[in-house]
Protein backbone atom coordinates (compact mmCIF):
# COMPACT_ATOMS: atom_id res chain seq x y z
CA UNK A 1 0.00 0.00 0.00
CA UNK A 2 2.64 2.47 1.11
CA UNK A 3 4.78 1.43 -1.84
CA UNK A 4 2.07 2.03 -4.39
CA UNK A 5 1.37 5.49 -2.93
CA UNK A 6 5.07 6.30 -3.15
CA UNK A 7 5.21 5.10 -6.75
CA UNK A 8 2.17 7.17 -7.70
CA UNK A 9 3.62 10.25 -5.97
CA UNK A 10 6.93 9.76 -7.77
CA UNK A 11 5.21 9.67 -11.15
CA UNK A 12 3.21 12.85 -10.32
CA UNK A 13 6.45 14.58 -9.35
CA UNK A 14 8.18 13.38 -12.50
CA UNK A 15 5.34 14.64 -14.68
CA UNK A 16 5.42 18.00 -12.85
CA UNK A 17 9.19 18.35 -13.43
CA UNK A 18 8.82 17.41 -17.07
CA UNK A 19 6.12 20.06 -17.58
CA UNK A 20 8.12 22.69 -15.71
CA UNK A 21 11.29 21.93 -17.68
CA UNK A 22 9.44 22.11 -20.99
CA UNK A 23 8.06 25.55 -20.05
CA UNK A 24 4.40 24.55 -19.58
CA UNK A 25 3.86 26.98 -16.71
CA UNK A 26 0.26 27.67 -17.66
CA UNK A 27 -0.56 24.00 -17.49
CA UNK A 28 0.99 23.89 -14.03
CA UNK A 29 -1.13 26.83 -12.87
CA UNK A 30 -4.28 25.09 -14.11
CA UNK A 31 -3.29 21.90 -12.36
CA UNK A 32 -2.73 23.77 -9.10
CA UNK A 33 -6.07 25.53 -9.46
CA UNK A 34 -7.91 22.28 -10.03
CA UNK A 35 -6.21 20.72 -6.99
CA UNK A 36 -7.44 23.64 -4.85
CA UNK A 37 -10.90 23.39 -6.36
CA UNK A 38 -11.18 19.69 -5.59
CA UNK A 39 -10.04 20.35 -2.01
CA UNK A 40 -12.78 22.98 -1.74
CA UNK A 41 -15.37 20.60 -3.12
CA UNK A 42 -14.73 18.34 -0.14
CA UNK A 43 -16.26 20.97 2.13
CA UNK A 44 -19.89 20.06 2.74
CA UNK A 45 -22.34 22.50 1.29
CA UNK A 46 -24.53 23.02 4.30
CA UNK A 47 -26.09 25.69 6.50
CA UNK A 48 -24.88 26.48 9.99
CA UNK A 49 -28.20 27.00 11.78
CA UNK A 50 -27.92 23.74 13.70
CA UNK A 51 -24.24 24.03 14.56
CA UNK A 52 -22.52 25.13 17.71
CA UNK A 53 -19.38 24.79 19.78
CA UNK A 54 -18.54 23.29 23.14
CA UNK A 55 -15.54 24.82 24.94
CA UNK A 56 -12.96 22.33 26.22
CA UNK A 57 -11.49 24.57 28.87
CA UNK A 58 -8.29 22.77 29.81
CA UNK A 59 -7.27 21.70 26.33
CA UNK A 60 -7.91 25.09 24.84
CA UNK A 61 -10.05 23.61 22.09
CA UNK A 62 -13.60 23.72 20.72
CA UNK A 63 -15.76 20.76 19.77
CA UNK A 64 -17.91 21.72 16.80
CA UNK A 65 -21.31 20.07 17.24
CA UNK A 66 -24.39 19.44 15.14
CA UNK A 67 -27.61 19.74 17.16
CA UNK A 68 -29.69 17.87 14.56
CA UNK A 69 -27.39 14.85 14.42
CA UNK A 70 -26.55 15.27 18.14
CA UNK A 71 -22.96 14.56 17.25
CA UNK A 72 -19.56 16.21 17.20
CA UNK A 73 -18.21 17.13 13.76
CA UNK A 74 -14.65 17.88 14.75
CA UNK A 75 -12.33 19.86 16.97
CA UNK A 76 -10.58 23.22 16.63
CA UNK A 77 -7.38 23.41 18.67
CA UNK A 78 -4.83 26.01 19.66
CA UNK A 79 -7.06 28.58 21.35
CA UNK A 80 -4.98 29.13 24.51
CA UNK A 81 -6.36 29.31 28.06
CA UNK A 82 -10.10 28.77 27.79
CA UNK A 83 -10.98 28.78 31.46
CA UNK A 84 -13.88 31.19 31.48
CA UNK A 85 -14.05 31.38 27.71
CA UNK A 86 -16.98 32.89 25.90
CA UNK A 87 -18.05 32.93 22.29
CA UNK A 88 -20.01 35.29 20.05
CA UNK A 89 -21.05 34.60 16.47
CA UNK A 90 -20.76 36.50 13.23
CA UNK A 91 -24.23 37.06 11.81
CA UNK A 92 -23.61 34.44 9.11
CA UNK A 93 -23.40 31.80 11.83
CA UNK A 94 -20.28 30.41 10.23
CA UNK A 95 -17.56 32.29 12.08
CA UNK A 96 -17.24 32.41 15.84
CA UNK A 97 -15.12 34.70 18.00
CA UNK A 98 -13.61 33.05 21.04
CA UNK A 99 -12.45 35.13 24.01
CA UNK A 100 -9.93 33.31 26.19
CA UNK A 101 -8.80 34.01 29.73
CA UNK A 102 -5.24 34.71 28.52
CA UNK A 103 -6.42 37.62 26.40
CA UNK A 104 -6.48 35.57 23.21
CA UNK A 105 -9.17 36.52 20.70
CA UNK A 106 -9.59 33.90 18.01
CA UNK A 107 -11.85 33.85 14.96
CA UNK A 108 -12.75 30.33 13.92
CA UNK A 109 -14.58 28.84 10.94
CA UNK A 110 -17.13 26.23 12.01
CA UNK A 111 -17.40 24.70 8.54
CA UNK A 112 -13.69 24.22 7.94
CA UNK A 113 -13.01 23.66 11.62
CA UNK A 114 -10.04 25.99 11.45
CA UNK A 115 -8.61 29.13 13.02
CA UNK A 116 -9.03 32.07 10.65
CA UNK A 117 -7.35 34.81 12.71
CA UNK A 118 -5.97 35.17 16.20
CA UNK A 119 -4.61 38.00 18.32
CA UNK A 120 -3.35 38.24 21.91
CA UNK A 121 -5.10 41.46 22.85
CA UNK A 122 -4.74 41.64 26.65
CA UNK A 123 -3.18 39.92 29.64
CA UNK A 124 -6.41 38.71 31.19
CA UNK A 125 -9.79 38.73 29.50
CA UNK A 126 -13.28 37.69 30.46
CA UNK A 127 -15.46 37.79 27.36
CA UNK A 128 -16.73 39.88 24.53
CA UNK A 129 -19.51 41.06 22.28
CA UNK A 130 -20.27 41.71 18.62
CA UNK A 131 -21.87 44.93 17.43
CA UNK A 132 -25.38 45.14 16.01
CA UNK A 133 -24.06 45.59 12.45
CA UNK A 134 -21.67 42.67 12.86
CA UNK A 135 -18.67 44.74 11.75
CA UNK A 136 -16.83 44.88 15.06
CA UNK A 137 -16.11 42.63 18.00
CA UNK A 138 -15.16 43.94 21.43
CA UNK A 139 -13.26 42.24 24.24
CA UNK A 140 -13.77 43.05 27.92
CA UNK A 141 -10.56 42.82 29.87
CA UNK A 142 -9.46 42.53 33.47
CA UNK A 143 -5.81 43.25 32.73
CA UNK A 144 -5.31 45.90 31.52
CA UNK A 145 -8.84 46.89 32.56
CA UNK A 146 -10.90 48.12 29.66
CA UNK A 147 -12.56 47.27 26.36
CA UNK A 148 -10.85 46.84 23.01
CA UNK A 149 -12.60 46.96 19.65
CA UNK A 150 -11.53 44.99 16.56
CA UNK A 151 -12.68 44.61 12.98
CA UNK A 152 -14.74 41.44 12.74
CA UNK A 153 -13.28 40.47 9.36
CA UNK A 154 -9.56 40.75 10.13
CA UNK A 155 -9.35 41.25 13.93
CA UNK A 156 -7.38 44.41 13.25
CA UNK A 157 -7.43 46.70 16.33
CA UNK A 158 -9.76 49.67 15.91
CA UNK A 159 -10.20 51.29 19.34
CA UNK A 160 -9.01 50.99 22.91
CA UNK A 161 -11.22 52.12 25.79
CA UNK A 162 -9.23 52.06 29.05
CA UNK A 163 -11.54 51.74 32.07
CA UNK A 164 -9.92 54.57 33.98
CA UNK A 165 -11.50 55.90 37.14
CA UNK A 166 -10.74 57.81 40.33
CA UNK A 167 -8.30 60.64 40.92
CA UNK A 168 -5.22 58.48 40.54
CA UNK A 169 -6.33 57.11 37.20
CA UNK A 170 -6.62 53.50 38.27
CA UNK A 171 -7.99 50.94 35.83
CA UNK A 172 -10.98 48.81 36.64
CA UNK A 173 -11.76 45.27 35.63
CA UNK A 174 -14.56 45.30 33.07
CA UNK A 175 -17.55 42.95 33.35
CA UNK A 176 -20.99 42.55 31.80
CA UNK A 177 -20.11 43.77 28.28
CA UNK A 178 -23.15 43.61 26.01
CA UNK A 179 -24.13 44.92 22.61
CA UNK A 180 -27.12 47.23 22.38
CA UNK A 181 -29.10 48.65 19.45
CA UNK A 182 -27.48 51.58 17.67
CA UNK A 183 -24.06 49.93 17.51
CA UNK A 184 -23.53 50.65 21.16
CA UNK A 185 -21.61 48.65 23.73
CA UNK A 186 -22.57 48.73 27.39
CA UNK A 187 -20.33 47.49 30.20
CA UNK A 188 -19.68 47.73 33.92
CA UNK A 189 -16.57 48.62 35.90
CA UNK A 190 -16.22 46.13 38.75
CA UNK A 191 -13.73 48.15 40.81
CA UNK A 192 -15.25 51.56 40.12
CA UNK A 193 -18.96 50.80 40.45
CA UNK A 194 -19.75 52.44 37.12
CA UNK A 195 -21.64 51.63 33.92
CA UNK A 196 -20.38 52.99 30.59
CA UNK A 197 -22.04 53.21 27.18
CA UNK A 198 -19.68 53.32 24.19
CA UNK A 199 -21.33 54.54 21.00
CA UNK A 200 -19.49 53.16 17.97
CA UNK A 201 -21.01 55.48 15.35
CA UNK A 202 -17.37 56.27 14.61
CA UNK A 203 -15.75 52.97 15.56
CA UNK A 204 -12.24 54.39 15.89
CA UNK A 205 -13.45 57.09 18.30
CA UNK A 206 -16.08 55.61 20.60
CA UNK A 207 -18.22 58.22 22.38
CA UNK A 208 -18.43 57.31 26.06
CA UNK A 209 -21.29 58.07 28.44
CA UNK A 210 -20.41 57.34 32.09
CA UNK A 211 -22.76 56.53 34.93
CA UNK A 212 -21.06 56.78 38.32
CA UNK A 213 -22.02 55.31 41.70
CA UNK A 214 -24.30 52.63 40.30
CA UNK A 215 -23.54 50.32 43.27
CA UNK A 216 -20.64 48.35 44.67
CA UNK A 217 -18.93 45.59 42.68
CA UNK A 218 -21.10 45.02 39.61
CA UNK A 219 -20.09 41.45 38.66
CA UNK A 220 -22.06 40.72 35.50
CA UNK A 221 -24.92 42.14 33.47
CA UNK A 222 -27.52 41.41 30.82
CA UNK A 223 -29.36 43.23 28.09
CA UNK A 224 -33.04 42.35 27.74
CA UNK A 225 -33.95 40.52 24.52
CA UNK A 226 -35.45 43.70 23.03
CA UNK A 227 -32.21 45.56 23.72
CA UNK A 228 -33.93 48.18 25.87
CA UNK A 229 -32.70 47.52 29.41
CA UNK A 230 -29.21 46.87 30.76
CA UNK A 231 -29.26 45.22 34.18
CA UNK A 232 -26.09 44.78 36.26
CA UNK A 233 -25.90 42.47 39.27
CA UNK A 234 -24.10 43.87 42.31
CA UNK A 235 -21.91 41.68 44.46
CA UNK A 236 -21.37 44.34 47.12
CA UNK A 237 -25.06 45.17 47.64
CA UNK A 238 -28.48 43.59 47.75
CA UNK A 239 -29.91 44.85 44.51
CA UNK A 240 -29.33 45.40 40.81
CA UNK A 241 -28.56 48.47 38.71
CA UNK A 242 -30.93 49.23 35.82
CA UNK A 243 -30.26 51.43 32.80
CA UNK A 244 -33.01 52.20 30.28
CA UNK A 245 -31.17 52.42 26.95
CA UNK A 246 -34.12 54.23 25.39
CA UNK A 247 -33.57 56.94 28.00
CA UNK A 248 -29.98 56.98 29.16
CA UNK A 249 -30.51 60.61 30.24
CA UNK A 250 -32.66 59.32 33.09
CA UNK A 251 -29.61 57.62 34.58
CA UNK A 252 -29.12 54.34 36.40
CA UNK A 253 -31.60 53.33 39.06
CA UNK A 254 -31.55 50.63 41.69
CA UNK A 255 -34.02 47.77 41.46
CA UNK A 256 -34.82 44.98 43.91
CA UNK A 257 -33.06 47.01 46.56
CA UNK A 258 -32.52 44.94 49.68
CA UNK A 259 -33.95 41.76 48.17
CA UNK A 260 -32.24 39.73 50.88
CA UNK A 261 -34.08 41.75 53.53
CA UNK A 262 -30.98 42.07 55.67
CA UNK A 263 -30.34 38.35 55.99
CA UNK A 264 -26.65 37.40 55.80
CA UNK A 265 -25.46 36.19 52.42
CA UNK A 266 -23.96 32.72 52.13
CA UNK A 267 -20.38 32.43 50.94
CA UNK A 268 -20.34 32.49 47.14
CA UNK A 269 -18.19 29.73 45.65
CA UNK A 270 -18.94 30.73 42.08
CA UNK A 271 -20.20 34.02 40.69
CA UNK A 272 -23.59 33.81 38.98
CA UNK A 273 -23.87 34.71 35.30
CA UNK A 274 -26.58 37.02 34.12
CA UNK A 275 -25.95 36.94 30.42
CA UNK A 276 -27.93 33.79 29.71
CA UNK A 277 -31.08 35.73 30.54
CA UNK A 278 -34.31 34.11 31.49
CA UNK A 279 -37.13 36.23 30.33
CA UNK A 280 -40.57 34.77 29.77
CA UNK A 281 -43.26 37.25 28.78
CA UNK A 282 -43.15 40.18 31.16
CA UNK A 283 -41.31 38.20 33.79
CA UNK A 284 -37.56 37.90 34.38
CA UNK A 285 -35.89 35.16 36.40
CA UNK A 286 -32.60 36.11 38.02
CA UNK A 287 -30.08 34.30 40.23
CA UNK A 288 -29.98 35.64 43.80
CA UNK A 289 -26.33 36.00 44.74
CA UNK A 290 -25.33 34.22 47.95
CA UNK A 291 -28.78 32.66 48.34
CA UNK A 292 -30.51 29.47 47.32
CA UNK A 293 -33.14 31.37 45.37
CA UNK A 294 -34.22 32.40 41.93
CA UNK A 295 -35.81 35.86 41.92
CA UNK A 296 -38.91 36.45 39.81
CA UNK A 297 -39.31 40.03 38.68
CA UNK A 298 -42.09 41.86 36.85
CA UNK A 299 -40.33 43.71 34.05
CA UNK A 300 -43.09 46.30 33.69
CA UNK A 301 -42.28 47.88 37.05
CA UNK A 302 -39.19 45.86 38.15
CA UNK A 303 -40.91 44.66 41.32
CA UNK A 304 -40.27 41.29 42.90
CA UNK A 305 -43.09 38.82 42.27
CA UNK A 306 -41.65 35.76 44.01
CA UNK A 307 -38.53 34.04 45.28
CA UNK A 308 -38.28 30.42 44.24
CA UNK A 309 -36.28 28.22 46.63
CA UNK A 310 -33.80 26.07 44.72
CA UNK A 311 -31.13 23.41 45.41
CA UNK A 312 -28.13 25.72 45.70
CA UNK A 313 -26.76 29.08 44.63
CA UNK A 314 -27.84 29.57 41.02
CA UNK A 315 -25.16 30.22 38.40
CA UNK A 316 -27.13 30.20 35.14
CA UNK A 317 -30.90 30.77 35.10
CA UNK A 318 -32.07 30.27 31.52
CA UNK A 319 -35.56 30.15 30.02
CA UNK A 320 -36.47 27.64 27.35
CA UNK A 321 -36.99 29.70 24.18
CA UNK A 322 -40.78 29.46 24.52
CA UNK A 323 -40.60 30.66 28.12
CA UNK A 324 -42.51 27.69 29.53
CA UNK A 325 -39.62 26.36 31.61
CA UNK A 326 -36.63 27.90 33.36
CA UNK A 327 -33.53 25.77 33.89
CA UNK A 328 -31.03 26.43 36.65
CA UNK A 329 -27.56 25.12 37.47
CA UNK A 330 -25.65 25.71 40.69
CA UNK A 331 -22.36 26.74 42.25
CA UNK A 332 -19.98 24.37 44.01
CA UNK A 333 -20.77 22.24 46.02
CA UNK A 334 -24.26 21.78 44.51
CA UNK A 335 -23.00 21.68 40.93
CA UNK A 336 -24.09 18.12 40.23
CA UNK A 337 -27.72 19.16 39.92
CA UNK A 338 -29.93 21.00 37.49
CA UNK A 339 -33.45 22.11 38.35
CA UNK A 340 -36.35 22.74 36.01
CA UNK A 341 -38.78 25.46 37.11
CA UNK A 342 -42.31 25.45 35.72
CA UNK A 343 -42.88 29.06 34.63
CA UNK A 344 -46.62 28.92 35.24
CA UNK A 345 -46.63 27.65 38.84
CA UNK A 346 -43.16 29.16 39.57
CA UNK A 347 -42.11 25.99 41.32
CA UNK A 348 -39.36 23.47 40.78
CA UNK A 349 -40.90 20.74 38.63
CA UNK A 350 -37.93 18.37 38.47
CA UNK A 351 -34.41 17.98 39.83
CA UNK A 352 -31.97 16.28 37.47
CA UNK A 353 -28.49 14.95 38.15
CA UNK A 354 -26.85 15.12 34.74
CA UNK A 355 -23.27 14.61 35.95
CA UNK A 356 -20.44 16.00 38.02
CA UNK A 357 -19.70 19.73 37.89
CA UNK A 358 -22.40 21.03 35.57
CA UNK A 359 -20.99 24.29 34.21
CA UNK A 360 -23.40 25.43 31.52
CA UNK A 361 -26.54 24.67 29.56
CA UNK A 362 -27.75 25.79 26.15
CA UNK A 363 -31.09 25.28 24.41
CA UNK A 364 -31.39 24.31 20.77
CA UNK A 365 -32.80 27.19 18.71
CA UNK A 366 -36.46 26.30 19.34
CA UNK A 367 -35.88 24.61 22.66
CA UNK A 368 -36.90 20.97 22.10
CA UNK A 369 -33.59 19.94 23.62
CA UNK A 370 -31.05 21.33 26.05
CA UNK A 371 -27.33 20.53 26.08
CA UNK A 372 -25.61 20.37 29.45
CA UNK A 373 -21.86 20.25 30.13
CA UNK A 374 -20.60 18.06 33.00
CA UNK A 375 -16.96 19.05 33.44
CA UNK A 376 -15.77 16.32 35.77
CA UNK A 377 -17.42 13.55 33.73
CA UNK A 378 -15.94 14.83 30.44
CA UNK A 379 -19.41 14.61 28.94
CA UNK A 380 -22.07 16.74 27.33
CA UNK A 381 -25.59 15.46 27.97
CA UNK A 382 -28.60 16.21 25.81
CA UNK A 383 -32.07 16.25 27.40
CA UNK A 384 -35.46 16.29 25.74
CA UNK A 385 -37.17 19.30 27.36
CA UNK A 386 -40.70 17.90 27.18
CA UNK A 387 -40.04 14.44 28.63
CA UNK A 388 -36.99 15.60 30.66
CA UNK A 389 -35.31 12.36 29.57
CA UNK A 390 -31.66 12.14 28.59
CA UNK A 391 -31.51 11.44 24.87
CA UNK A 392 -27.82 11.65 24.00
CA UNK A 393 -24.37 11.91 25.49
CA UNK A 394 -21.19 13.14 23.80
CA UNK A 395 -17.52 13.04 24.81
CA UNK A 396 -15.81 16.35 25.46
CA UNK A 397 -12.69 17.07 27.51
CA UNK A 398 -13.57 19.14 30.60
CA UNK A 399 -16.43 20.89 28.81
CA UNK A 400 -17.60 24.31 29.97
CA UNK A 401 -19.54 26.78 27.82
CA UNK A 402 -21.89 25.61 25.06
CA UNK A 403 -22.70 28.13 22.33
CA UNK A 404 -25.10 27.50 19.44
CA UNK A 405 -25.16 29.59 16.28
CA UNK A 406 -28.71 30.77 17.03
CA UNK A 407 -26.96 33.34 19.25
CA UNK A 408 -25.86 35.09 16.04
CA UNK A 409 -29.30 36.66 15.67
CA UNK A 410 -29.90 37.68 19.28
CA UNK A 411 -29.23 41.08 20.84
CA UNK A 412 -27.01 40.82 23.89
CA UNK A 413 -25.32 37.60 22.79
Amino acid at each position, binding site marked *: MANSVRTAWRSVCAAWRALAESGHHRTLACLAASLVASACAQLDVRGTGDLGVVVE*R*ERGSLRVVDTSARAALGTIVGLG*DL*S*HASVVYARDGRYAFVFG*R*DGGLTKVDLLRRAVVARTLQAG*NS*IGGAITQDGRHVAAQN*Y*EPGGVKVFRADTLEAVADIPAVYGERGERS*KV*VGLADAPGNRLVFSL*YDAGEIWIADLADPARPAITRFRDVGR*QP*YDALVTPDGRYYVAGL*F*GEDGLALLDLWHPERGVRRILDGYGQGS*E*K*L*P*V*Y*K*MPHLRGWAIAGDVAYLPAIGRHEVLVVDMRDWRMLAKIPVAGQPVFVIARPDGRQVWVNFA*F*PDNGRVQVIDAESRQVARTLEPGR*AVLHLEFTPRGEAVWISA*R*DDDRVLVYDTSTLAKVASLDAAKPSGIFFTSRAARIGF
Partner: protein
Amino acid sequence: MIAPRASCPAVVVTPMRRFVVAAIALAAASPLVAAGADDAAPPAPPRQHELLRLLHQDCGSCHGLRLTGGLGPALTPGALKDKPEASLVAAIVSGRRGTPMPPWQPFISEEEARWLVTRLKEGNTDGQ
Protein backbone atom coordinates in the same frame (compact mmCIF):
# COMPACT_ATOMS: atom_id res chain seq x y z
CA MET B 1 -19.94 36.62 60.41
CA ILE B 2 -20.70 34.67 57.33
CA ALA B 3 -21.81 31.23 58.33
CA PRO B 4 -21.56 28.25 56.02
CA ARG B 5 -24.88 26.53 55.69
CA ALA B 6 -25.43 23.49 57.82
CA SER B 7 -25.80 20.99 55.01
CA CYS B 8 -22.30 21.59 53.64
CA PRO B 9 -20.47 18.28 53.50
CA ALA B 10 -17.59 19.36 55.71
CA VAL B 11 -14.27 17.67 55.11
CA VAL B 12 -13.57 15.59 58.17
CA VAL B 13 -10.00 14.88 59.12
CA THR B 14 -10.33 12.04 61.58
CA PRO B 15 -7.91 11.84 64.52
CA MET B 16 -6.70 8.49 63.15
CA ARG B 17 -5.95 10.01 59.74
CA ARG B 18 -4.19 12.89 61.38
CA PHE B 19 -2.06 10.45 63.36
CA VAL B 20 -1.13 8.37 60.33
CA VAL B 21 -0.33 11.46 58.30
CA ALA B 22 1.77 12.88 61.12
CA ALA B 23 3.62 9.60 61.50
CA ILE B 24 4.44 9.50 57.82
CA ALA B 25 5.59 13.10 57.98
CA LEU B 26 7.87 12.35 60.94
CA ALA B 27 9.34 9.35 59.21
CA ALA B 28 10.16 11.27 56.06
CA ALA B 29 10.22 14.88 57.17
CA SER B 30 10.69 16.63 53.85
CA PRO B 31 12.52 19.97 53.89
CA LEU B 32 9.36 21.45 52.41
CA VAL B 33 7.33 20.60 55.49
CA ALA B 34 10.10 21.40 57.94
CA ALA B 35 10.41 24.87 56.45
CA GLY B 36 6.66 25.43 56.91
CA ALA B 37 4.93 25.79 60.24
CA ASP B 38 5.23 23.73 63.39
CA ASP B 39 2.73 20.89 62.98
CA ALA B 40 2.25 21.01 59.19
CA ALA B 41 1.83 17.55 57.72
CA PRO B 42 1.05 16.93 54.07
CA PRO B 43 -2.41 15.57 53.30
CA ALA B 44 -2.61 11.94 52.11
CA PRO B 45 -1.92 11.58 48.36
CA PRO B 46 -5.55 11.07 47.28
CA ARG B 47 -6.53 14.16 49.23
CA GLN B 48 -3.63 16.08 47.67
CA HIS B 49 -5.04 15.15 44.29
CA GLU B 50 -8.50 16.39 45.32
CA LEU B 51 -7.11 19.64 46.69
CA LEU B 52 -5.14 20.40 43.53
CA ARG B 53 -8.20 19.68 41.41
CA LEU B 54 -10.28 21.97 43.62
CA LEU B 55 -7.56 24.61 43.30
CA HIS B 56 -7.49 24.61 39.52
CA GLN B 57 -11.16 23.98 38.82
CA ASP B 58 -13.06 25.74 41.59
CA CYS B 59 -10.62 28.36 42.91
CA GLY B 60 -9.82 28.70 39.21
CA SER B 61 -13.28 30.01 38.41
CA CYS B 62 -12.17 33.34 39.93
CA HIS B 63 -8.35 33.02 39.98
CA GLY B 64 -8.05 31.40 36.55
CA LEU B 65 -7.52 27.77 35.61
CA ARG B 66 -3.83 28.58 35.29
CA LEU B 67 -3.99 30.73 38.45
CA THR B 68 -3.01 33.82 36.50
CA GLY B 69 -5.91 35.79 37.99
CA GLY B 70 -9.43 36.76 37.05
CA LEU B 71 -11.95 38.49 39.23
CA GLY B 72 -9.67 37.32 42.04
CA PRO B 73 -5.92 38.08 42.08
CA ALA B 74 -3.23 35.91 40.47
CA LEU B 75 -1.90 33.06 42.63
CA THR B 76 1.41 32.63 40.84
CA PRO B 77 4.66 32.39 42.86
CA GLY B 78 5.61 35.89 41.75
CA ALA B 79 2.29 37.35 42.86
CA LEU B 80 2.48 35.59 46.25
CA LYS B 81 6.18 36.20 46.90
CA ASP B 82 5.75 38.99 49.44
CA LYS B 83 2.52 37.75 51.00
CA PRO B 84 2.90 36.20 54.47
CA GLU B 85 1.88 32.55 54.66
CA ALA B 86 -0.40 33.14 57.64
CA SER B 87 -2.46 35.76 55.84
CA LEU B 88 -2.86 33.54 52.78
CA VAL B 89 -3.93 30.60 54.92
CA ALA B 90 -6.41 32.86 56.73
CA ALA B 91 -7.81 34.09 53.39
CA ILE B 92 -8.45 30.51 52.25
CA VAL B 93 -9.94 29.31 55.51
CA SER B 94 -11.94 32.38 56.53
CA GLY B 95 -12.38 34.29 53.28
CA ARG B 96 -11.76 38.01 52.83
CA ARG B 97 -14.53 40.34 53.94
CA GLY B 98 -15.57 42.99 51.47
CA THR B 99 -14.40 40.85 48.56
CA PRO B 100 -16.02 37.84 46.88
CA MET B 101 -13.43 35.48 48.45
CA PRO B 102 -15.52 32.98 50.45
CA PRO B 103 -14.39 30.99 53.48
CA TRP B 104 -13.34 27.51 52.30
CA GLN B 105 -13.27 26.15 55.84
CA PRO B 106 -16.21 23.73 55.20
CA PHE B 107 -14.12 22.06 52.49
CA ILE B 108 -10.47 22.78 53.32
CA SER B 109 -8.86 22.46 56.77
CA GLU B 110 -6.23 24.87 58.02
CA GLU B 111 -3.47 22.26 57.60
CA GLU B 112 -4.62 21.63 54.04
CA ALA B 113 -4.72 25.37 53.33
CA ARG B 114 -1.14 25.68 54.62
CA TRP B 115 -0.08 22.82 52.34
CA LEU B 116 -1.80 24.52 49.38
CA VAL B 117 -0.09 27.85 50.15
CA THR B 118 3.32 26.11 50.21
CA ARG B 119 2.61 24.48 46.86
CA LEU B 120 1.35 27.78 45.41
CA LYS B 121 4.43 29.69 46.56
CA GLU B 122 6.61 27.01 44.96
CA GLY B 123 4.57 27.07 41.77
CA ASN B 124 4.19 23.34 42.23
CA THR B 125 0.47 22.73 41.70
CA ASP B 126 0.40 20.57 38.59
CA GLY B 127 1.53 17.26 40.09
CA GLN B 128 -0.78 14.35 40.89
